[in-house]
């Protein structure tokens, strides 16, 4: 855990570590000058001098096997890239009618131009679609803002409360002169975004409790958590969603109904929580026993120890698997189609059923895929940044 070095071999960046009395000033001067030259990695100059050819020779053609592999890869690229570029961009048709598309040899992006409102907003009343647009824009902006470190202040919670109210008003309406839109008419991007973000946001704290519960010394709690996690992990999400939407209402008393969207959300949340709990547990197990002992010896209570010492360290370790799970949950929202909800992918499918544009379903799916990719890739990049931030000082 700890890195030890004698005082005179301290890393260059940290400077000399003062032990006891401060060293005389002339020490510091000589100390700072010296390592600057010595610290540059020796091969750095030689590498850049040779430039691309040298680099390629060293890395791509250095052995017979590598030469063969390099040539094979180049051949493959030659086969794949030009046709792909032609279809996607060069020979694609970007606007106009479906007739124009029939002439073109490439992709028919006009289908997106024509159908994008349906893909993004599903069956939401056409003239009111600025409302889900605004709601999504607000939502994405807030998600982006929440990732910025400077905004991690108490007021962010307030801003989120306002955003959620605002989104509710925009989506449902029924107040402030907005017409009422029941949520079975919602569809497309808002459904995908809300289902994934809300289910992840609720599942994450839940998963921490489950992971802690799994390590609890109380048998009842432990058994419950293990049972829950293993049950959820043992069944496909599709069946969880079915249970939530078909079976769950059977258990409710007469007259009580829970909204379809909410039921799907509950199913997604519980499912995601079970998987996340296992990721979190991995982090808990990586915390050395000494950390618990130090916290105990200082007199911290169980919750103080958990919240102040254990979780901050455990969660840092498991940022990659947690984000992996977030990404997976985001994509899994597309499964809600089986309980009759219109997420982005379902809306895209509906867009392809128009006979006039039916031949261009591939373009629609490429576009829907691109939308998913944008969100997933952002999450992935963000997690890399977060990881660097979290591990900046804690070298283990």
């Amino acid at each position: 855990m700890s890195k030890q070095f004698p005082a005179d071999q301290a890393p260059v960046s940290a400077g000399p570590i003062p032990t006891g009395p401060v060293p005389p000033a002339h020490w510091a001067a000589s100390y700072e000058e010296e390592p600057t030259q010595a610290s540059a990695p020796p091969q750095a100059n030689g590498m850049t001098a040779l430039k691309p050819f040298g680099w390629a020779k060293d890395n791509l053609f250095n052995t017979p096997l590598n030469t063969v592999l390099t040539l094979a890869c180049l051949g493959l690229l030659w086969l794949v890239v030009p046709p792909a570029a032609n279809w996607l961009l060069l020979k694609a048709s970007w606007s106009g009618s479906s007739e124009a598309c029939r002439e073109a040899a490439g992709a028919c992006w006009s289908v997106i131009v024509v159908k994008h409102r349906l893909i993004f907003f599903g069956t939401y009343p056409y003239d009111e679609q600025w409302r889900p647009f605004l709601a999504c824009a607000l939502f994405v902006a807030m998600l982006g803002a929440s990732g910025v470190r400077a905004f991690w202040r108490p007021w962010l919670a307030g801003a989120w409360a306002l955003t959620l109210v605002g989104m509710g008003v925009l989506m449902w309406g029924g107040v402030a002169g907005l017409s009422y839109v029941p949520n079975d008419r919602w569809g497309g991007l808002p459904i995908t975004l809300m289902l994934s973000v809300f289910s992840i946001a609720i599942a994450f704290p839940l998963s921490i409790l489950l992971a802690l519960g799994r390590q609890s010394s109380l048998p009842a709690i432990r058994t419950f958590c293990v049972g829950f996690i293993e049950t959820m992990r043992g069944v496909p999400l599709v069946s969880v969603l079915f249970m939530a939407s078909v079976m769950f209402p059977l258990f409710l008393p007469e007259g009580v109904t829970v909204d379809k969207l909410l039921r799907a959300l509950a199913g997604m949340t519980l499912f995601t929580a079970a998987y996340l709990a296992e990721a979190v547990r991995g982090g808990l197990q990586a915390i050395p026993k000494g950390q618990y002992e130090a916290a105990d010896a200082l007199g911290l209570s169980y919750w103080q120890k958990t919240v102040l010492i254990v979780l901050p360290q455990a969660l840092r370790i498991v940022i990659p698997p947690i984000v992996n799970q977030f990404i997976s949950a985001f994509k899994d929202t597309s499964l809600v189609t089986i309980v009759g909800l219109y997420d982005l992918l379902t809306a895209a499918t509906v867009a392809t059923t128009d006979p006039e544009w039916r031949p261009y379903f591939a373009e629609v799916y490429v576009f829907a895929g691109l939308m998913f990719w944008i969100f997933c890739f952002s999450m992935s990049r963000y997690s890399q940044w977060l990881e660097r931030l979290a591990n900046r000082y804690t070298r283990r």
Partner: protein
Amino acid sequence: MTENAIIELRKVGKWYNSYHALRDVSISIKKGEKVVVCGPSGSGKSTMIRCINRLEAHQTGHIIVDGIELTDDVKAVEKIRRKVGMVFQNFNLFPHLTVLQNLTLAPIWVRGMAKSEIEEIAMMYLKRVRIPDQAHKFPGQLSGGQQQRVAIARALCMRPEIMLFDEPTSALDPEMVKEVLDVMTELAGEGMTMVCVTHEMGFARQVADSIVFMAEGSIIESGSPAEFFENPKSERTRQFLGQILEH
């Protein structure tokens, strides 16, 4: 049994599953006394001092710290942990917190002290362990000796009446041992009650009021450093001293 003992162990027995780690250990430590515990590896030294703040639970006998008996009662354990500071072989600093945060965390959350107040006190302790300029670094950026001094300061910030040390210098490179022992010697001079597992016999000779020698889970003998070093009673002790004083 002593009247004014601050730590009292009476016939303490401790098992790890079926392994008998402590056998009828009895010891009585007065306020302000410095006790050095030594003995071969696996003799139960760590186990004994970890029982004093109940990082380990004993199964038979009694442990009484400052008049409070250690039982399953959580309240009693909490009270005792506030009085007893502990320093570990591997420092066990919190790597995600700065040095200053390491020091102030427990006083803020356990003692309910104001942040500004305890920060001032923490800086004072950092000065005493001679690393005030490292207050805003993270433990991973410090040398082992510095980390151990931070760990001592962290324990002191809780204003303990008793300090337990479990081989505080054995994970350190030789040149850092002295800086930690110096801090401990200074602390001893201020009248702190100390129980210290260590093989630093120079330190023991200089600081200890009594030395306890353990083997196979029992206390073989205890006495003043003079008696212990010059005139050990048991063969086992002589053997141990022979080994340890060789190098």
